[in-house]
């Protein structure tokens, strides 16, 4: 992807926010990745009963949590099995996307 293209997409992604299906930082598409999480974490990650909400949480906190599940330093039930399947760029994109959603 060219620098100009990347810049244009980044600008648009900021303009459109979470509704956008465009790529976020690091070339990973946070919006497309996040859809898979809604089944448990609720629509746009706004929560689903016992399963925590992700919407509006600090991006750094979400990324640290996901990375901790992936490297085994944070215990859990489901997420330690799912988190290792995402790259660092994908974790960042997911965290940034959920952080932008109004809780």
């Amino acid at each position, binding site marked *: 992807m060219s620098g100009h293209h990347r810049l244009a997409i980044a600008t648009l992604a900021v303009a459109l926010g979470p509704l956008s299906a465009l790529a976020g930082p690091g070339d990973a598409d946070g919006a497309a990745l996040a859809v898979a999480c809604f089944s*448990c974490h*609720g629509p746009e990650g706004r929560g689903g009963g016992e399963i925590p909400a992700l919407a509006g949480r600090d991006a750094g906190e979400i990324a640290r949590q996901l990375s901790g599940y992936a490297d085994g330093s944070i215990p859990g039930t489901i997420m330690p099995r799912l988190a290792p*399947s995402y790259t660092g760029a994908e974790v960042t994109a997911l965290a940034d996307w959920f952080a932008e959603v109004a809780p």
Partner: protein
Amino acid sequence: MKMQRRTFVASLAALPLAAPALARGAGPRVTVVGAGYGGASFIRTLRRLAPEVEITVIEQTPRFHSCPFSNGVIGGLWDGDRISFEYDGLASTGTRWASGAAVGFDPATREVTLEGGEVVTGDYVLLSPGISLNFAAIDGYSPEAAEAMPHAWQAGSQTGLLRRQLVEMEDGGTVVVAIPRPPFRCPPGPYERISLIAHYLKAAKPASKIIVLDAQDGFSKQGLFEECWAALYPGLIERIPGAESGEVEAVDPATMRVSTAFDDITADVANVIPPQRAGALALDAGLDGGIGWCPVDPVSFESTLAPGVFIIGDAAIMGEMPKSGFSAAQQGSACAAALAARIAGDDPAPRKLINTCYSLAAPDWGFSVADVYAQTADGIAAIRPGGGTTPLGADADTHAAEARYANSWFDTLTSQLWG
């Protein structure tokens, strides 16, 4: 309702990228057959990504009955209302609902014929038809025989029938559960069902027993189920695997006899789950290519045999993704994104899809298999390392947490799809 949609469209029109598409006027027509986990998820997502599309929905049942959580009805954990959903919420997303079941489909013209004779045409067709039951594979079994020996593998009246038979059975009775060769809908489902029937019998009819006649040797989450059975239901479940001629070959509903190549067993309650294939509409249209399940492109889910026809859920061959409601819902939203891209003139982008299948072996004893799958041109494969099942030997708190998460997952997803 129309107001909501208009408001939503208007707000999207304010976005610079969406405006050109809307300016074209009426968008392409998309026909959706089947409003279960796959179809409902597809409709919701396509409505959001491509609001100009005209969607016509064809659904044969007046209410949706969920297979996920239907074993809880059979085991008496909750009643049938928990798994029964109106389509009103889905219908009010600005879709047209055709009346009646689809009885024919022509892949060349993409025309769907309804039982009343109406013909629905579309530029694209999404088939999410689920499974059909191959009654003929078991001698003596039929839709009529299933009124005495329910399969309960398509939820609804069959679910209630099996529950009633268990309630009416006297203590000391024999429950037979017959499990077919794979592939079938919900690989751990039969074993969850056995567990929850055992949970009911242990409390209400402790002199009873369950005989499992299984065409399979090994099975999904086997160690986790057997760990629970040994702890909670010792002596209650006897399983005959495929290698010991567990496969059921014949049934006689008049005498309640269930027969393998090796043995005849007289059941008080017989839950006979027959072998399965793709839903009848897809089979009859030849979209399975003669192999029972429908081959599709792993990224777009477009049929490899019929351009413009997309097939998701249990009916399709989805690589390593299991036939589950969770998978179907993920495929539905990915397929809608792929079609929205196609309509916009773009290539569909591969995604990462998730499947988390929970099983309840008792009300507070849950476990799961959880995997992330990558779509590639070669197929859909689980990403390793990562993924897998709840570890063996997990403590009671873990199983209790997974049971709570299972309940949350079900309520969260079903409210998004049909709420």
